[in-house]
């Protein structure tokens, strides 16, 4: 990442302030705040059960935090729903894969174009000219993403039949198809081998570099995270214990303790 970036890191696009989330008596997140700057690659790391996925679910509106606010593009969003966030330009992938299993790769990615589809069901039923025009644009964009991710050879295969690594790629493709300004990636490299991980890193950086998409990713693999992210926030037991550039985080005593354990 030594070369000049096409999209300079800008102002905060996503701000999370004092979020607290609990399930019954279990506190998943306690008073957590951090921000994400425009065009950056931001990683959220932490040991198992640190509240990383819960954090993404709060940002995306799947969980409703008991306290705290989420601001997106300078607006504080009071009643967050996944649908509203998608409309505002925030897309995501899921930890345990949430693809449309019986649909083909191309159809999965086409669903990502939903917000760019304005025709209603009657117009689709009668195949009016504007439906055809819109469908053509959406298909072209989807094909672009498919070739960008180098998965042309499987585009008509039902997603359920694909191996795990490819499914992760399709999910990234579907998120890309939305043309969102921010994409949340929930463990995009979990369960992948070294080569697949390297591939996925390449795509994440390529997307960030060529399209300027802000990437927020959760990852276990410290090495990978340190290599590709601009800034890292470290969670442990639902609290922020470190926030900064990879180098700052690496030398943070609290982070080292959380990952390596403390002498008692």
């Amino acid at each position, binding site marked *: 990442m030594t070369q000049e970036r096409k999209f300079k890191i800008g102002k905060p696009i996503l701000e999370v302030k004092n979020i607290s989330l609990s399930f019954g008596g279990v506190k998943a997140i306690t008073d957590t705040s951090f921000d994400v700057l425009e065009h950056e690659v931001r990683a959220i790391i932490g040991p198992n059960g640190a509240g990383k996925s819960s954090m993404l679910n709060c940002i*995306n509106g*799947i969980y409703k935090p008991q306290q705290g606010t989420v601001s997106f593009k300078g607006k504080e969003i009071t009643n967050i*729903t*996944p*649908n509203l*966030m*998608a*409309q505002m330009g925030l*897309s*995501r992938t*899921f930890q345990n894969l*949430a*693809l*449309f*299993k*019986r*649909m083909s790769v191309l*159809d999965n990615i*086409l*669903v*990502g*174009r*939903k*917000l760019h*589809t304005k*025709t209603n*069901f009657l117009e*689709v*039923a*009668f*195949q009016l000219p504007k*439906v*055809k025009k*819109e*469908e053509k644009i*959406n298909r072209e964009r989807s094909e672009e993403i498919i070739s960008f991710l180098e998965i042309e*050879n499987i585009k008509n295969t039902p997603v359920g039949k694909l191996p795990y690594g490819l499914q992760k790629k399709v999910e990234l493709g*579907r998120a890309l198809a*939305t043309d969102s300004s921010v994409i949340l990636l929930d463990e995009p490299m979990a369960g992948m081998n070294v080569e697949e991980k390297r591939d996925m890193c390449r795509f994440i950086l390529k997307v960030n570099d060529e399209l300027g998409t802000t990437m927020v990713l959760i990852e276990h693999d410290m090495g990978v995270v340190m290599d590709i992210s601009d800034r890292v926030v470290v969670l442990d037991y639902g609290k922020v214990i470190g926030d900064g550039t990879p180098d700052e985080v690496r030398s943070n005593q609290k982070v080292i303790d959380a990952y390596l354990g403390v002498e008692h």
Partner: protein
Amino acid sequence: MKPVFMTYTKKDLINLAVCMVLSVLVIPTFITTEYWYTSILIPWLCLALATIGQQIVMGYTGQLALGAAGFMAAGAFAMFNLILRVPDLGFVGSLIVSGLIAAAFGILFGLPSLKVRGIYLMVATLASQFFIIWMIDKFGWFKNYDSSGIITAQDIVILGKPFTTPLAMYFVCLAVTTVLTLLAMNMARGSTGRNWMAVRDMDIAAESMGVSLLRTKVQAFAISAFYCGVAGALFAFCYLKSLEPVAFDIKLSFKILFMCILGGLGTINGAFIGAAFILLFPVLLNAIGNNVFHGAIDATIISSIEQVIFGGLMIIFMIYEPLGMAKLWENIKQKWKTKIPSSTNIKSSLSKKT
């Protein structure tokens, strides 16, 4: 496969042409017995149409709904009242408005799908079945205060011409079914169908992509009820030629559900295959009973055997081919193709590898 015309590929157009030639030219020339029209072809088209409705909500959108017959009753009685009270609408206009009235019920009874799912939704949608039948029975206005319980359906008149012979009625059903099937195919293959299937396969992800669960589910229920309503109106006016709420009881709902599952969930052609199978199977069993055993087996036993075989088939399909007969047919075609590789297949298999 590239679409040649609208969303249809060359294969689709050939299939469509074959179906049209068969149904418009071959059947009317070779089948002259009224029995075939009044007892098999007309109910087949009507029930296939209702099954497409069930497919949209269950096969494509994945919402377990059980109440197709209720919406059919709504459509049938709406049709009766529209022809009776608003004669200016004409047959086709009344048919469309009856579908819309059924769709309004569909929206109302589809709302629970936002909160409950699976088997619980099935129970919730049963309410539509019982409510609509109860409403028609309770308020005499719907039956025009007829005390006999069975009302004769009005004659079908389109543009001043009566359509009263079985053949003419068959053509009415065929025309309506063809148009609505093509519209359903357009929707299923377009962005509308993708939204339905996205909700079916993974609703949370669909929502995160901007697909509104509320709108998609309610839309599917409305379109499904529209199809059922139109099918119900045709069923009453072309097949039963009378209107009685009992004809649209829960048994008919189950029949349509079976047609949907046996035919193949999430397919349009499955609706036709499933409807044909369930309608023709009893006829076939009867013929076997009469011709092979020369009436030695009692008719009541045959109808019991029918139930047993249906039950068995349902279980077998659920285990071995959950995607139904349409998928089975695809598999047979696939095997046939791989056994005898034609030059085009070799070409396509080569291009797949590269």
